[in-house]
């Protein structure tokens, strides 16, 4: 099973960056600070993690601390999976 990091990188590369070279940034690169994604893509990411990992994301959880890099999003997903287990 692919790790959350791999799934997130792959989703962004294919659906947001339309990149032929995978996800070309570091896992801790800021999505918004480095213009990797824009505000509209945030909602796309919320839906992606809900559907892919079977978790429910609350409005108050849609904050940069959870959604602003591959590492932060993967850590958020792991925390949610632990709570849901």
């Amino acid at each position, binding site marked *: 099973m692919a790790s959350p990091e791999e799934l997130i990188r792959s989703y962004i590369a294919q659906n947001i960056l339309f990149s032929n070279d995978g996800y070309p940034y570091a896992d801790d690169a800021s999505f918004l600070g480095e213009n990797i994604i824009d*505000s509209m893509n*945030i*909602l796309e990411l919320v839906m992606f993690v809900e559907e892919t990992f079977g978790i429910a994301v609350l409005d108050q959880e849609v904050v*940069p601390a959870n959604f602003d890099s591959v590492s932060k999003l993967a850590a958020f997903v792991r925390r949610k999976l632990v709570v849901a287990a």
Partner: protein
Amino acid sequence: MSASFGIKGLELDVSEEVERITRGLRLAVHQTLHRQGAVVGISGGIDSSVVLALCARALGPERVVGVMLPERDSSAESVSLAREIAAYCGVQTVCEDISAALEGAGCYRRRDEAIVRLFPDYGPGWQAKITLPGSLLSQETLNVFTLTVTSPDGREFSRRLPLREYYQIVAASNFKQRIRMTMLYYHAELRNYAVVGTANKDEHDLGFFVKHGDAGVDVNPIVHLYKMQVYQVAQYLGLPEAIRNRPPTTDTYSGGSTQEEFFFRVPFPILDVVWLGYEQGVPATEIANALALSPEQVERIIADIARKQHTTAYLRMHPIVIDSPSGQART
């Protein structure tokens, strides 16, 4: 940077600015565009009222037409205030109810289809609006839209908008601005006039407009002015108080969302000062001191400004031309 940074930085020399804009309007309309007058879409809001008054001053009221474009979801106040400002400026008005055109294009039906997928009870008599999370001053949530509907008996229900429904509601609602644009051009071409736009800097630079809708104009006389500066011009021109004191609304959604809750997320007196400081390279701590905010609050507002500029950049682009051997696009 000067220690005196603050709201005073937004203060215009209003008389000089009004003189400059009216001179520019005359040049643009008569000399550059070779049109004989101006058509302005008027909503009773501060921006269109200021532009109407500037056009009347620049071109003479007899060469300006104010067009009111209400539809089913418009507030009645919009038309009455629009008539008030037109009378104040001595300008002729035309009222075009665009509801039938919107009905024909399927605006309401397409929008309501998306709403019903989220709220099956939604129907006639209900109201709907889209909002962003609460004020940026109190929390650092990202810009995820919420749909709020209100039943005829006043019960309110909210849900985060999934992408499919968000896109459909916005795409359908944008018929309103685009039909308005076509009606303004009808009235402009009928008279050999230009269409004069009403966007201010906040709306244009942060992307609070519809491409080829309200942005479809010939001249943009106040697009360089912060919203707070538009108020200064309104005061200088002596516009009626009812117009100067009206909270800015979207006048697009039946639920009547304000521009602050739909898009900007902070009051204009704060947003504009922070933005001015950001543009001038003033440190966040200094901006914070001027506004009695924390540096973290200022940083949040600046981050939101930068994100909106980035996210909406495509709205401000001209059509892209692909004529190089490599296929590389250019704007």
